[in-house]
């Protein structure tokens, strides 16, 4: 083939990739994310270096994988770890300065007994409406007209110089150009900062397009001491635990907090939380039982059905197989909710057909059974699929040889089929175990971790570590991503430790080959 076509194609692709990288960097630069811009530029450079020459052939294959690993695995992990040492969460999203500015800005109250003015916005005649210094043209409730300037305050505007609308708003004034709605809106940022000072220390500010009020911030900031003082509560607030908290010990705080590093506090919370500690062991045991039980039950059922449908004499396999895959094809959350309805003690299908009085979702043991049954229903089609595939790849002559040697069906299954099957399916069983160990959605949709029989709402009888973690992190007044990250790191450590023997076991299986 013609070599030069491929060379040209290569360069086209490199250029396309670089153009894309450049576009991405430009987008990031516009948002001011300079670290990301640097990283993107570095990636672009790597692409150019690796793919333009013949020097780094292995790297050409490794690079995309490394990139994906860094971007999709390492980066989120680093992010999670870094968040785990902060108090990041609701009320702690921004900086202390942002929080303080919000508190002061939100404390502006209308001065009691002050008038509401009809108002329009204007600039001095001849000055550009888009940039000129803004003036407020005001009409008091008594009909007196004023011009307001942010520096000079109010000065009267002679009655003869103005034209007023029916509601009293000034529509034209000698020496001023009045702005229309769109023009006012375009100056929204300036207007937000504009206040015409009044004698009592307040400021006249616009509300909307044709009204102004006299407002005053009821909270003031003392930069020297870094405290806030509220005229309403007559209290001083100082920073404490990333909140401005009243210094009188009343526990009164402003709800706008800020993000800060808290060191190991999140981990300390996890390991010292009394409910977490008392419930941890119980939940851990159930979590293992649940994950193991699910894998075993789904695997056994899936394998038996697969064996059955793998029988050469069975007719209409296609139809049966498609029907069996149905539970797998329906979204799991729909199935979980359906089962929840069927497990209802009084109105559910299961108790009604079987004439049982079992409180499936209220009794701790029945609820555990209900969870396992539902997950069996959800999970066996997957195992069935996997086993069917694996069984079909087992050569028929091995089984035939066993039969000729006088092995009965059971012996063939145990000694020949199963080991060969497990080689193929073993890693998937471990994956399934890992998935179910953290099967949040099933528990959350079916039982929400309940029933809660301990007289609290923290430790449920069907809770997994992950649902407990969710509740722990998000049940406080303010969902805390910092705490959630810390919990997920702890769970990761647990799963990693437990997976080690599992992976060793798979290695042993592989040695059969």
């Amino acid at each position, binding site marked *: *083939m013609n*070599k030069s076509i*491929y060379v040209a194609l*290569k360069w086209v692709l*490199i250029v396309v*990739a670089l153009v*894309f990288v450049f576009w*991405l960097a430009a987008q990031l630069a516009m948002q001011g994310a300079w670290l990301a811009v640097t990283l993107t530029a570095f*990636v672009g450079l790597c692409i150019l270096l*690796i*793919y333009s020459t013949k020097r780094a052939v292995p790297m*050409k294959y490794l*690079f*995309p994988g490394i*990139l*994906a690993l860094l971007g*999709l695995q390492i*980066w*989120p992990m680093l992010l999670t770890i870094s968040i785990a040492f902060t108090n990041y969460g*609701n*009320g702690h999203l*921004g900086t202390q300065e*942002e929080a303080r500015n*919000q508190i002061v800005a*939100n404390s502006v*109250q209308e001065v009691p007994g002050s008038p509401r003015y009809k108002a329009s916005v204007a600039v001095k005649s001849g000055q550009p409406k888009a940039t000129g210094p803004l003036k407020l043209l005001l009409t008091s409730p008594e009909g007196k007209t004023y011009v307001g300037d942010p520096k000079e305050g109010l000065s009267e505007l002679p009655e003869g110089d103005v034209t007023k609308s029916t509601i009293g708003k000034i529509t034209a004034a000698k020496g001023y150009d009045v702005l229309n*709605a*769109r023009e*006012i*809106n375009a100056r*929204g940022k300036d*207007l937000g900062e504009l206040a015409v000072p009044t004698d009592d220390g307040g400021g006249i500010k616009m*509300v*909307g*397009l*044709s009204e102004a*009020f006299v407002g005053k911030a009821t909270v003031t900031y003392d930069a020297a001491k870094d405290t806030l003082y509220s005229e309403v509560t007559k209290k001083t607030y100082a920073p404490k*635990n990333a*909140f401005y908290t009243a210094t009188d010990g009343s526990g009164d705080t402003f*709800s706008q*907090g800020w993000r800060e590093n808290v060191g190991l506090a999140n981990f300390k919370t996890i390991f010292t939380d009394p*409910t977490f500690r008392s419930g941890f062991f119980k939940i851990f045991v159930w979590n293992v039982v649940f994950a193991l039980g699910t894998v075993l039950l789904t695997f056994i059922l899936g394998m038996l059905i697969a064996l059955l449908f793998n029988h050469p004499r069975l007719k209409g396999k296609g139809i049966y197989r498609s029907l069996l895959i149905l539970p797998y094809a329906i979204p799991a959350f729909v199935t979980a*909710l359906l089962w*929840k309805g069927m497990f*209802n003690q*009084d*109105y559910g299908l299961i108790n009604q057909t079987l004439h049982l009085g079992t409180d499936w*979702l*209220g009794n701790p043991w029945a609820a555990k059974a209900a969870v396992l049954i539902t997950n069996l229903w959800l999970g066996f089609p997957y195992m069935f699929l996997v086993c069917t595939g694996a069984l079909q790849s087992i050569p028929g002559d091995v089984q035939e040889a066993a039969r000729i040697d006088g092995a009965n069906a059971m012996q063939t299954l145990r000694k020949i089929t199963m080991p060969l099957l497990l080689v193929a399916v073993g890693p998937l069983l471990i994956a399934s175990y890992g998935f179910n160990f953290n099967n949040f959605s099933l528990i959350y949709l079916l039982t929400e971790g*309940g*029933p*809660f029989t301990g*007289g*609290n*709402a*923290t430790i449920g009888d069907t809770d997994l570590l992950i649902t407990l973690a969710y509740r722990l992190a998000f*049940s*406080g*007044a*303010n969902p805390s991503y910092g705490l959630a990250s810390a919990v997920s790191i702890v769970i990761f450590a647990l799963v990693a430790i437990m997976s080690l023997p599992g992976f060793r076991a798979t290695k042993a299986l592989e040695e059969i080959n």
Partner: protein
Amino acid sequence: MHKRAFGAVAAIGATTLLMTACGGTTTPAQTSGSTPTSTSTSTAAAPATTSATAAPTRDANADLVIWCDSTHGPAVTAIAKKFADAQGLNVQVQTTPDDKTRQQYQDATKVGKGPDIVVGAHDWLGEFVQNGVAAPVQLDAATAAKFQPSATAATKFNGQNYGVPYAIENIGLIYNKDVISTPPKTLDELISMGQAAVKAGKAKQVLSMNVGKQGNPYMAYPFFSAFGGGVFGTKANGDYDPNQVIINNAGSVKGGELLAKLGKEKILSTNVDGTNVAQLFTSKAAPFLIGGPWDIEPAKKANINYGIANLPTVAGGGAMQPFLGVQMFYLSSKAKNAPLAQEFLTAFVPTDDVQIALYEGGQRPPALKTAYDKVAAQTPDIKAWFEAGKGGKPMPNIPAMNAVWTPWGQAEADLISGAATDPKARLDAAAKEIKAAIAKG
């Protein structure tokens, strides 16, 4: 050469993946109806259609951008068009998926991509203020006085007024007129009427009320309020005080005792939950339903001859008073069009036309007194809902409320199911849990 070309393709693929990973905050662009023009001719505001979960993307050319959930989309769009026509502006209404407005609005606002105004429930307020995404709205006293006091109370946080209300929502007693001729005044009457209906074979159970295995304290709250119980005490300025948890005060304990008694008598059951509560009423299994305006459509569809009444009074206490939920317009703290947004909120939303248009879209009593009077004169259902909510208190809008629902609900469920036998001890335990969660911050 083959290999190298493949390598380049793979690199591009990987870069794309990386971009997706980095671009978590950007959302797919949505088409947004009409193309906006920058002239002063009025442009009809068309609701932007969104995919199932993505947040809408604001149109840079719009003079005013409003977000609401898809249920309220048509009504808000209609009033936005009126405002656009009157002002000669381009107003755009964009809808989010129904239960995603709260989060998507906050996420978008944090990165400067949010709307100028968002429509939502009043109990989002505490979180919005806390996260700095809501700005105060300076209504003048005369305008504020035009609203039902409970509605303006709900839009206040820490003494400041945020947003403008437009509808009030609460639960009441829905009954089947074919079985129950006149609604009961007291809970005892309700029970005896229901039991008579069961005896006569006209029903299978007395009452349908959402409890569930984890409880539903929003529904159970009236049982506590009837005895003077509640969630939080109030500060001097009328705000709920997160440091005063009263779910185990004397009144609340009496409410708990009543719930336990009703559970024992099988009037209430943890087996009635969100999946079957409405259906028990529409299938005529229960002649009474404690429910809200959302239960009316299904009842109409099932051809139930329904009536709406106040919740009954209880022996030894007063009337069962529900939580009020108030629907409101929030002003964004990062509004790019603050003057127009303020004009919309302070001069346009507090008018009869707008409030009635919103009522027609949502079928809840308007928050503006004059608009309510007009609607109530013509629509008995709306009058009935409003009456049922009279005297009720707004659901707490302080962030600490997040810590209350779960422990409080579990205590309620435990009392009804009989898992907990001592109401005082169980509510004490729940209060302890709540206080610990609030202290956690």
